[in-house]
């Protein structure tokens, strides 16, 4: 584990895997909940957790790097279920990449249990991990100028669901009616880091 200073009041803690980043994130949330850590933002990402708004980042850096990341705590909450019609325009390409028929690609995706590793790109957009590494897929060579809201998409090791229409280069495998982001709802985001997710196939319209 490395703790890199970011300006005068933030720390970027770098670990060696996405799994470790999720465990570190859980541990930092626990410390904050117990009043052991005062910080404005805890932002997990692919291999790092950013702590922004610290009084004494140097002291925290030496404290953190002196210890091991404890294993992620047992998961208490049930997985959120997201209904998906697996009829995306890139499903055939993803299936070909995986070397399986389309219906089998949908089944592989729906059988996996996902965890929101981190959020970014847009409010409520989660980067979900859970597929074995052999199912990593490349981004599209040419990004789409508009990906519809609710698109379920793959890129690299991640699955994501577009909270609203936006440009995007991910492979679209399906579509959901679930509302990923509603700022009038509490909480506004359906998915936050650490949330467990299952995609449940539903029949096309």
């Amino acid at each position, binding site marked *: 584990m490395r703790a890199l200073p970011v*300006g005068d009041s933030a720390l*970027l803690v770098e670990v060696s895997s996405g799994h470790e980043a999720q465990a570190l994130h859980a541990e930092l949330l626990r410390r904050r909940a117990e009043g052991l850590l005062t910080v404005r*933002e805890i*932002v997990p990402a692919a*291999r790092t957790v*950013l702590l922004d708004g610290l009084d004494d980042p140097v002291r925290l850096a030496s404290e953190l790097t002196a210890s091991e990341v404890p294993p992620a705590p047992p998961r208490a909450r049930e997985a959120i279920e997201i209904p998906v019609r697996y009829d995306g325009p890139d499903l055939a390409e993803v299936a070909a990449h995986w070397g399986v028929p389309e219906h089998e690609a949908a089944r592989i995706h729906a059988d996996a249990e996902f965890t929101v590793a981190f959020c*970014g790109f847009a409010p409520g957009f989660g980067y979900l991990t859970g597929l074995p590494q052999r199912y990593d897929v490349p981004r599209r060579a040419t990004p789409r100028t508009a990906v519809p809201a609710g698109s379920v998409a793959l890129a690299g090791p991640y699955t994501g669901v577009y909270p609203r229409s936006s440009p995007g280069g991910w492979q679209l495998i399906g579509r959901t009616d679930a509302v990923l982001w509603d700022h009038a709802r509490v909480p506004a985001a359906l998915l936050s880091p650490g949330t467990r997710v299952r995609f449940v196939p539903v029949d096309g319209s």
Partner: protein
Amino acid sequence: MTDRALVVVRAGALTTVQDRGRPGHAHLGVPRSGALDKPTAALVNRLVGNPPEAAVLETTVNGCAVRPRSTVTVAVGGAPCPVSVDGRPVAWGAPVRVPAGALLDVGAVVSGVRGYVAVSGGIAVEPVLGSRSTDLLSGLGPAPLTDGAVLPLGTPKNVHARVDVAPQPAPPAELVLRVTPGPRDDWFTAEALRTFTSRTYRVSSASNRIGLRTEGPALDRAVPGELPSEGMVLGAVQVPPDGRPVVFLADHPTTGGYPVIAVVHPGGLPAAAQAAPGTPVRFINARRH
């Protein structure tokens, strides 16, 4: 009966509602947003008797014009500009009474970029996640002003400040930003690090509320490729593939994959908000001073 609202007569190039933003939601992909020149937003609020968290208007280069439906006190600050009420010049940087139905015109800036207009009671659009700020990256908060839009106003709480003209820093003729190297300075060549803190850049006209873009010598990488996405802070100096540093401002993305060579000291960011395209920019290594 009072009708506490502002009618937008001339929206200007880009006028947005801004307060202190919505920090604390970065883990959900929500940018902090908020006024780029925070001390000025706080100052104009104080001049009209508003609390510091009240929402103000942030104008860009050519100001805006609004007509209050009830009598209000306003104050205009930030980038210096002519201000008039029904065509008569009034003070800039001071509380000014605008009668119900009169036209407040905030003119084009003489220097700098962004003007701040506080109105007694504050702009009272519906908050989103605790803030009324327009976030141009994520689209949260109210849309930028358009001609004919009507903005609700809050109820004034205090009498305005008894000052004639409040002192304000002039927009920078040269933008000097103190930086702390890292977290990814090791992704750049030693030559690039020297170039970054010794050569002069210029503010690019492609700058916006997301980032202050620069033109100048490209910074060469020692490590190729992209980083796995990582969290970004306000003032991060990210270096995209073209090698020209970008200073992240209030609407910056919460995560990014281009390496951050250094972070600007927060004290320099209000001046960055007022640095017009073409302004020389120098990055000074704070560790060496």
